[in-house]
């Protein structure tokens, strides 16, 4: 057993040295493709974070005219509370002008021009409404009824923004997934090619090995180990890149403290999981790719 292990390790290392250029090419390609795989996951996660936050949040805002009298506000609230099957009445919140002004201070932190126009007196107060129904048409219909009520200035649907972001996220998801799959195939192809070259360089040895009765697995394992190592080294590089990328991104996003964008930060725990996944994909792709290549070229 010990003879076999030392043999496999020795042969793997020798082959690695023999094929420096091809090995480097295979490693770099797997690193880039795995980095993209990781980035895909992170981007999706960031968008999911953002969408989840919005989804669980207000989806309908009824803005009340700043000059509405308390009775009109009362009527609006009654109207909202009369639809407990469509509206989550427990989560219904009324932000009076002071609260709305405070919120605006945050939302328009980056837009002092707009802020200057707003005062606690002219800002509309608002009902933040969380619908129970998933059907956006139903919600829209309801919204139109509220719009007709006296004292209502405007009804805004979060659904509109949500849809746009969801569509963008979907597009990015498909594009990055497709790119990472293509690159992953290229990486496996390059690993395959390195293994084929390595086997060609050692065809005499392989022939002798087969003739003296070495099992196919015995012949194959050093090559698989080589492929596995190439995939794994590529994955380690990809992990380093991913960590750097995420740190830089998080740093940049956190500068927009307190805005919705902060949802785009992906936390370290998730990144560690993705890194583990990348290492696994790299190792498996390398070993399987080279294993298949080794089997293909093994029939003497």
């Amino acid at each position, binding site marked *: 057993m010990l003879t076999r292990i030392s043999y496999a390790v020795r042969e793997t290392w020798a082959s690695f040295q023999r094929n420096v250029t091809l090995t480097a090419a295979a490693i770099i390609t797997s690193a880039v493709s795995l980095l993209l795989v990781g980035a895909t996951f992170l981007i999706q996660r960031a968008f999911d974070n953002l969408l989840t936050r919005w989804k669980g949040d207000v989806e309908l805002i009824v803005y009340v005219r700043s000059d509405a009298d308390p009775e009109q506000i009362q009527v609006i609230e009654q109207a909202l509370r009369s639809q407990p099957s469509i509206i989550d009445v427990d989560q219904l919140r009324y932000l009076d002008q002071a609260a709305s002004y405070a919120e605006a201070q945050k939302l328009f932190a980056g837009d002092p021009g707009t802020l200057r126009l707003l005062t606690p007196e002219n800002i509309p107060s608002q009902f933040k409404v969380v619908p129970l129904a998933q059907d956006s048409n139903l919600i829209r219909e309801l919204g139109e009824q509220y719009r007709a009520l006296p004292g209502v200035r405007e009804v805004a649907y979060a659904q509109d923004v949500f849809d746009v972001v969801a569509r963008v996220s979907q597009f990015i998801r498909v594009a990055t997934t497709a790119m990472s799959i293509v690159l992953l195939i290229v990486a496996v192809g390059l690993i395959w090619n390195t293994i084929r070259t390595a086997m060609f360089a050692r065809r005499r040895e392989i022939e002798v090995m087969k003739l003296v*009765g070495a099992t196919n697995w015995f012949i194959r394992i050093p090559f698989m180990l080589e492929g596995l190592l190439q995939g794994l080294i590529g994955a380690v590089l990809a992990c380093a890149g991913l960590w750097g990328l995420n740190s830089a991104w998080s740093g940049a996003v956190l500068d927009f403290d307190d805005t919705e964008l902060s949802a785009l930060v992906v936390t370290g725990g998730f990144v560690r999981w993705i890194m583990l996944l990348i290492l696994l994909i790299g190792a498996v792709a390398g070993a399987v790719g080279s294993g298949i290549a080794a089997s293909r070229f093994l029939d*003497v």
Partner: protein
Amino acid sequence: MIRLDSVSKTYGSEAPAVRDASFDIAKGEFVFFVGPSGSGKSTLLRLMNRQEQPERGTVWLVGRDINSMADSKIPFLRRKIGNIFQDYKLLLNKTVFENVAFALEVIGRPKHVIRQQVPAVLELVGLAGKEDRFPHQLSGGEQQRVSIARAFVNRPLILLADEPTGNLDPATGEGIMKLLDRINNTGTTVVMATHDQRIVNQMRRRVVQLDRGVIVRDQERGVYN
């Protein structure tokens, strides 16, 4: 030990390399396959260690039908067979010792067995003291001795030799034949393909003559023709 039952083998669309070959080789026998190039000698040898599969007929080795044997069992079959070639097939980047040790290493023999058996077999083939030479530092005869040592180090039951003296001058070839004779005397069955008339006539062993893939003569204590 070896038995062929109406074995035929064709490569592609050419005329059959071996046609309807049948014979028995007993344990401990020394058999020559003779005939001109392309008469099917090498193909017969390749059929015996399942480097080739016949279209028809059965090859029996040590009482087993090797054609219907699972691929995974073939390596273990080959451990019972030693192979010697005209071009030696040595690994040029390995020393004499490493070349022979390689045969044991790749079938998972432990180090202490290798350290004990390799010098013993090198002694047997007359290469004691040349363990650390590389193939290019050896004469053709010495290189063939290394390849015989590699074929024999695992004490196979059968030795298949394809033109082992083909690249050697007569005197050196004779030395190789003496060595194969000694190995045969240990009880190892030796099957050798050759077109070296002198050697065949000198040895006076069983001769199987082939002509265009057909066995035309099978004679005890025979001569070349």
